[in-house]
């Protein structure tokens, strides 16, 4: 009675070959089993055939497993009534060196019917007997509530198998706006050329380059996420497409060209880059500015009138340009990412640790205030990524910084912080890594749920576009990737990961759950979600303040932080694959009560 429960044998199976379906959190391997990480614990959904339930305005997903034990060709088909849009992705099985196992993660879009053979030629897995497919069913907001019947079928040399799929569409609507922002970070743009076009000399000026940038934004947007690309280095060098070109010096410093900046950001800031997506054409909600200690003002003039003149001239021009273009929906972030360990500036902008560095924040806030008219409709924010001394920064930089991105471990010690920061109108995200594929599938839902339970606005995956040197055959686990380059499959665009799909579905569930606040108190919704997720109480998602927090941060060490954060991690050891499904069942139960 382990995860085997979860395998649904189909009503009809050809001799040897067959079609099976698995709930989304139970990832299959290439031999027809559930991967070891997802086997323990709870019950999946498909006990009585593939019966799905969903609210409108969102996705419902599952795995289809084509089993061809004798190997050879097969054809997979999937049909649904017009109101339900079905999309099929072939699941790539990555071999991880660390545990010598296969995990599905990259999702290759395929058209229907899908014809191939086992072993799948490009995945090159000896004795592969099963190919997994991720199925996304999109239920539009206009879909009529009711039961829809679809069918998957598999044809092999041995015969034909079919699988009925029943989808109950509830009247409830998933809100279009998320209550938790899932952010996906990246650095620079040279990695795009590494994936798609390093050999082309004119690549960085080509339409294809800008289209690819937009495609990365689009894939995260379509998965209910946000994409960030930092455009400057630790020494202040700015990538040409991340900033307007400048000329002159001192009082004559000015913007000479918006050409590359507008090609890059125009379609993102007016939303046209997202035309044709299911979520519609909307401007990106957040964007890094290129401002750093060396841009737009030269650090040569730091502390002198020339620094202020250069900064204010250029940032004022930027405000005017954004206003004239009507780019007023996006928050433009003044954010300092540099660290003194990279030897270019004397203070830490990112993860500040030493108190004497705080004065620079105060000065930049003053400069920004001087550059931007008080009544501007353009939304400038001052973002700080804080860890060691966030508590002190919250106090000393009140009214200076208004967008906090906090280290997840330390933030868990300060339960009072969300209320305090929100009361003064600040935005709060926290940051950390991305669960690797060898962790239980539901691990990807912990941070979105934590953000909601903590009452903060979002979570940042610090790096999400870097799948490693050879993700296809020697995978490092995907701790820095939630998308993959599609180049290998003839797709000159990013392709999603399975973990990104799981995260999207979780984020839409949270939006749905949160929408029931009129029916139940927010606290009771959180309490029930936490109970179902891992048998916890929301209070337990905060850690007791450790003694370490009362020492000066420059006396902390990474090992002492690790030690202090251990109680928080304990809560999630033993998380089972069905953890999120139980939360979703709660959301759907409430949705089912809607009329």
């Amino acid at each position: 009675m382990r995860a085997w429960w979860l395998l649904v044998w189909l009503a009809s199976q050809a001799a040897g070959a067959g079609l099976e379906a698995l709930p989304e959190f139970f990832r299959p391997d290439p031999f027809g089993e559930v991967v070891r990480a997802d086997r323990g614990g709870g019950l999946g959904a498909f006990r009585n055939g593939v019966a799905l339930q969903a609210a409108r305005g969102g996705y419902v997903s599952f795995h289809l497993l084509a089993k061809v034990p004798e190997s050879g060709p097969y054809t997979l088909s999937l049909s649904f009534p017009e109101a339900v849009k079905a999309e099929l992705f072939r699941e790539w099985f990555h071999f991880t060196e660390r545990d010598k196992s296969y995990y599905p993660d990259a999702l290759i879009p395929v058209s229907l019917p899908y014809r191939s053979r086992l072993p799948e030629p490009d995945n090159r897995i000896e004795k592969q007997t099963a190919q997994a497919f991720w199925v996304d069913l999109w239920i539009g907001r206009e879909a009529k509530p009711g039961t829809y019947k679809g069918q998957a079928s598999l044809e092999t040399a041995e015969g034909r198998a079919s699988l009925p799929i029943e989808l109950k569409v509830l009247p409830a609507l998933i809100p279009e706006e998320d209550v938790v922002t899932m952010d996906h970070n990246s650095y620079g743009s040279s990695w795009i050329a590494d994936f798609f076009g390093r050999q082309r000399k004119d690549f960085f000026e080509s339409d294809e380059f800008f289209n690819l940038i937009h495609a990365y934004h689009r894939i995260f947007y379509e998965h209910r996420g946000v994409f960030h690309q930092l455009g400057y280095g630790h020494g202040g060098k700015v990538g040409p497409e991340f900033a307007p070109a400048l000329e002159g010096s001192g009082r004559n410093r000015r913007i000479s060209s918006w050409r590359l900046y507008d090609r890059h950001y125009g379609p993102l800031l007016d939303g046209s880059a997202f035309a044709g997506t299911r979520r519609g054409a909307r401007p990106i909600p957040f964007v890094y500015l290129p401002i750093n200690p060396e841009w737009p003002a030269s650090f040569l003039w730091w502390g002198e009138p020339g620094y202020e003149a250069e900064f204010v001239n250029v940032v004022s021009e930027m405000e005017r340009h954004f206003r004239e273009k009507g780019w007023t929906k996006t928050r433009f972030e003044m954010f300092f990412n540099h660290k003194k360990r990279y030897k270019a500036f004397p203070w830490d902008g990112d993860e500040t640790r030493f108190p004497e560095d705080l004065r620079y924040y105060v000065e930049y806030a003053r400069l920004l205030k001087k550059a931007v008219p008080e009544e501007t409709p353009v939304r400038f924010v001052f973002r700080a990524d804080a860890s060691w001394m966030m508590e002190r920064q919250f106090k000393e930089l009140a009214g200076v910084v208004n967008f906090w991105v906090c280290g997840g471990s330390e933030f868990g010690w300060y339960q009072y912080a969300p209320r305090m920061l929100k009361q003064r109108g600040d935005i709060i995200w926290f940051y950390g890594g991305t669960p690797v594929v060898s962790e239980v599938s539901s691990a990807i839902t912990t941070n979105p749920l934590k953000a909601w339970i903590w009452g903060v606005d979002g979570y940042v995956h610090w790096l999400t576009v870097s799948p490693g040197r050879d993700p296809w055959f020697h995978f490092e686990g995907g701790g820095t990737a939630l998308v993959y380059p599609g180049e290998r499959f003839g797709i000159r665009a990013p392709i999603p990961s399975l973990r990104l799909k799981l995260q999207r579905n979780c984020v839409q569930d949270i939006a749905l759950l949160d929408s029931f606040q009129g029916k139940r108190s927010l606290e009771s919704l959180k309490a029930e979600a936490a109970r179902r997720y891992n048998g916890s109480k929301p209070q337990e998602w905060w850690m007791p303040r450790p003694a370490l927090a009362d020492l000066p941060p420059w006396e902390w060490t990474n090992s002492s932080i690790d030690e202090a954060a251990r109680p928080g991690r304990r809560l999630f050891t033993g998380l089972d694959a069905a953890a999120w499904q139980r939360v979703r069942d709660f959301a759907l139960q409430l949705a089912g009560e809607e009329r």
Partner: protein
Amino acid sequence: MRTRILFGLSILVALPACAQPDSMARQLDEVARVATVMVDGDVCQRIVTPRAMKYMLKVDPRDRWLGSDNFDVNHEAYIQTKKTLLRLARLASFPCDVNLWMPLQTDPPKIQIVIRNTNEMSQFWPWGTLYQDMIPQMKTVLETGRRMTVQDKPGWISVLAPVYNSLGDVVGVVEAVSRLERDARENVK
């Protein structure tokens, strides 16, 4: 007189577009020569704090970031020196950086880059390294006080020059560096 000035200006303006290795090397050598005069070695010696130096060389198997997380500088000395380096870089007619390197008192000898600059160029710094093995050419400069041109990486030119303190000791090295073909996105990460 006016013709001569215009002629001189036109050479300076034309250089970035058609900079040749020889002319670049000459200009970088001049920048490095001036750097030796202008960069104050005593101030440089005050940049990295004693606490940062102590942690930099500590090894803790439980904390691989111990050195970098404790890296800190004296702001005044840092800013003063960085501004000098930024000014020096403006002597060249093409984009160049003037970086400061300083040796560590270790056996075997190590060296660290202490100040990098706007174009994020260096022929010797593996991105992100806090300190590294002594670079043989820098060792020579530190021992002899002689300037040295290095073109080990194709398309790169660095001129290394000594930095003196008030006692006349060579306490550091400036690297005046540029590339024949700039990579606009290198180190934007």
